[in-house]
């Protein structure tokens, strides 16, 4: 019972629902109270204890439905080893929701020959989806003529005909072990692993036997062949379920995690377009982590009016003479960040991800104003306020990325537009490769910014070796920056933004 819950929590964690050990304990107590009997009740109850955001609830719902369906099948299959195969048919029927149940009942009631034949043809049509229903029919056939089937010769065939589910389950687990089903990483491998497992269990022998029997002239042998075929289908289904469950337990995310790891360190300009969505997820996750890390920021206060109650209270110890004054405090506005991004072709991708990062941090990030330029500079803050993140970024890149890079002009525009707003609480981040096409540098404007702002940080997506080569004037600009960093992967970005938050909150 506890094991099932632990397994389920593992699945939840894979589905990116964060479950802490304390919550696991809560789930255990809940389970004691609620029990497994009422599935809906259990689902509602655990939904209160385990997932703690709306997104997580959605993931939880899906995971619960999937997981507990499998568990049911699995438990029943294992429990039924001692009961007769007729029982099995009924059980399976239940799982197929009523419809199968009725058929099972009808099957056992049918006794006369014509009725049986009719049912047989009917179930043949359905045979592919519901191989289990055929089991009780096999019983009937056995009733009609005692001992009409020959003995199966292949190992798997014997197992199948012996009707022992425990042995089959054990065999399945062994096969799973043999083909390392635990290493499954992406969902497209499911079919592959299922086939490998079937092979490991001796499918080829069984196949050979079935085709031999099919050609046989004797009725009992043919009957056995048909029966084996049906049971093979059933086994296939079971194996597929098994692999599916293993996939849910072990893989699913590990494959994703692998790709995420890769994407964190890969150069952002090399990221393919189809990975953008994933990157965005990663950025969001990184941002979330940074946000929680810095959520408990130190607040900066300004002194306000006299706080009379506090002052009196604190001065009681001095015999009521008031000399230790306490003030109401006024919170100071959060510091500002100006992000100036080069969005010309070569750097556009980096700008995309930096903007993504900055705006994902809205909750804890100081007020961000953003500017984009290739030749002329323009403020895009409003774009971000009105549109959602992705649209805003695309619009920015679309509108401003034309034209050749001109850092001098951009700085000039910046001075004209908003240099007056820069004060000693402002951090300016400039993202660009400092390749100025041999244009005018106007580094004195940068010096002015440097003098006024709290910090000027230059992020250069090129690797350090390339700086100052060709038309790059990083050396000139670097002199007027508090910090110059190479920044071309999500890891770099995370570090830079993390530092920024640390300083902003200090």
């Amino acid at each position, binding site marked *: 019972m506890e094991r099932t819950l632990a397994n389920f929590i593992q699945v939840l964690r894979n589905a990116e629902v964060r479950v802490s050990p304390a919550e696991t304990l809560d789930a255990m107590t809940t389970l004691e109270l609620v029990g497994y009997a009422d599935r809906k009740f259990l689902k509602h109850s655990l939904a209160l*204890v385990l997932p*703690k955001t*709306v997104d997580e609830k959605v993931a939880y719902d899906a995971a619960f439905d999937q997981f507990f369906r499998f568990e049911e099948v699995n438990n029943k299959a294992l429990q039924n080893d001692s009961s007769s195969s007729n029982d099995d048919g009924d059980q399976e029927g239940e799982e197929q929701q009523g419809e199968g149940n009725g058929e099972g009942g009808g099957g056992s009631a049918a006794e006369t020959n014509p009725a049986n034949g009719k049912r047989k043809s009917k179930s043949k049509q359905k045979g592919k989806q519901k191989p289990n229903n055929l089991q009780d029919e096999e019983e009937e056939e056995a009733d009609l003529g005692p001992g009409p089937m020959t003995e199966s010769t292949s190992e798997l065939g014997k197992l199948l005909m012996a009707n022992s589910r425990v042995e089959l389950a054990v065999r399945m687990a062994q096969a799973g072990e043999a083909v390392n089903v635990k290493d499954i990483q992406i969902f497209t491998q499911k079919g592959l692993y299922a086939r490998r497992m079937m092979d490991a269990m001796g499918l080829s022998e069984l196949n050979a036997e079935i085709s031999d029997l099919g050609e046989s002239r004797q009725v009992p042998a043919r009957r056995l062949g048909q029966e084996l075929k049906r049971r093979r289908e059933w086994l296939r289904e079971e194996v597929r379920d098994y692999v599916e469950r293993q996939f849910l337990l072990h893989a699913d995310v590990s494959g994703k995690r692998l790709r995420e790891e890769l994407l964190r360190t890969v150069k952002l300009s090399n990221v393919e377009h189809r990975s953008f969505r994933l990157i965005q997820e990663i950025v969001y996750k990184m941002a979330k982590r940074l946000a929680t890390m810095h959520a*408990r920021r130190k607040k900066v206060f300004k002194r306000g009016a006299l706080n009379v109650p506090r002052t009196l209270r604190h001065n009681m110890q001095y015999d009521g003479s008031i000399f230790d004054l306490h003030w109401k405090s006024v919170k100071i506005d959060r510091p500002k960040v100006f992000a100036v991004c080069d969005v010309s072709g070569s750097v556009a991708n980096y700008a995309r991800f930096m903007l993504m990062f900055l705006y994902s941090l809205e*909750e804890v990030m100081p007020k961000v104003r953003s500017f984009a330029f290739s030749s002329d500079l323009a403020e895009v803050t409003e774009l971000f306020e009105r549109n959602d993140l992705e649209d805003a970024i695309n619009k920015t890149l679309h509108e401003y990325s034309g034209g050749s890079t001109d850092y001098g002009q951009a700085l000039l525009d910046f001075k004209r537009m908003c240099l007056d707003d820069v004060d000693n609480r402002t951090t300016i981040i400039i993202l660009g490769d400092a390749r100025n096409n041999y244009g005018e540098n106007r580094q004195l404007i940068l010096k002015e910014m440097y003098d006024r702002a709290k910090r000027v940080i230059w992020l250069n997506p090129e690797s350090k070796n390339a700086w100052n080569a060709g038309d790059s004037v990083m050396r000139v600009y670097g002199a007027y920056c508090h910090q110059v960093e190479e920044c071309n992967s999500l890891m770099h970005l995370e570090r830079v933004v993390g530092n920024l938050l640390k300083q902003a909150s200090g």
Partner: protein
Amino acid sequence: MPDIAQITQSVASIKAAFEEHRYICSDQIATAVYLAFHLRKPILIEGPPGVGKTELAKTTSELFALPLIRLQCYEGLDEAKAIYEWKYGKQLLYTQVLKETLEEVLQGAKGFKESVTRLHEFGDIFFSEEFLEPRPLLKALKEENGCVLLIDEVDKSDHEFESLLLEILSDFQVSIPEIGTVKASREPPMVFLTSNNTREISDALKRRCLHLYIPFPDLDLEQKIIHARVPKIPPELRRQMVAFIQELRELDLKKVPAISETIDWARTLLLLHADSLDPDLVRGTLNVILKFQEDIVNVQGEISAITSKVKTAKR
């Protein structure tokens, strides 16, 4: 006095009891109350504004006939307003009184040391429960027969305040430096926290609570709610107006109408003696359900289309 054991026996009985108090709830909500009662855990309720988060706490207090103690959160809320404060005026007054009798107290004391020892006998009195002004959280702990504690809009408070809540949420106690730890009385309070999701609540807080998300209700549930709250409204009109509101929620609005708006609208329509929706009626009463001029303008054009759609829809 309601039979609490009877009510909390199962989810269904809770649901029925809520219905008697005119609060129509889904299974999920009833399950939350069931678990909160049996596991003695606080519930953190999230959801869009106006879906009955605060109402749930209120109804629960009615249901169990317990007093409701409410703490409205806002930015800058601190322990002096939430947990306790010293009655500084009284303390000051007593100091003055004591000053006059100081001589009597110290009479016969030889040397400084003895005087201080005598003074010590008085010292702690000023920081005893006599001088303590309990605020909502402390009050809730001291309530003899238990109570329902509603911490409303916890997302509006500061991060620091959240940490302050942790102790009371997990152990039902608060620590006051001068006095020590105050534990809950026999019956710990049932705690409801509500949040409108203006910011993310910290994991530490979430971990200590059951997490209940109340979404907008579906058509049937909302009809039942309207039926319970505004019983006099004709059934056909009720169906139409609820369907209309459900359609509105699909539109891209600044603020979609919540249940409380639906109820207001139902009352308005009842007052106007309407018996079915028509575009003019809707246009005239649109400001009851939409709270932004921008939204009203946007919806104006759609009114006739939606009205005819909900009218022709199958009953």
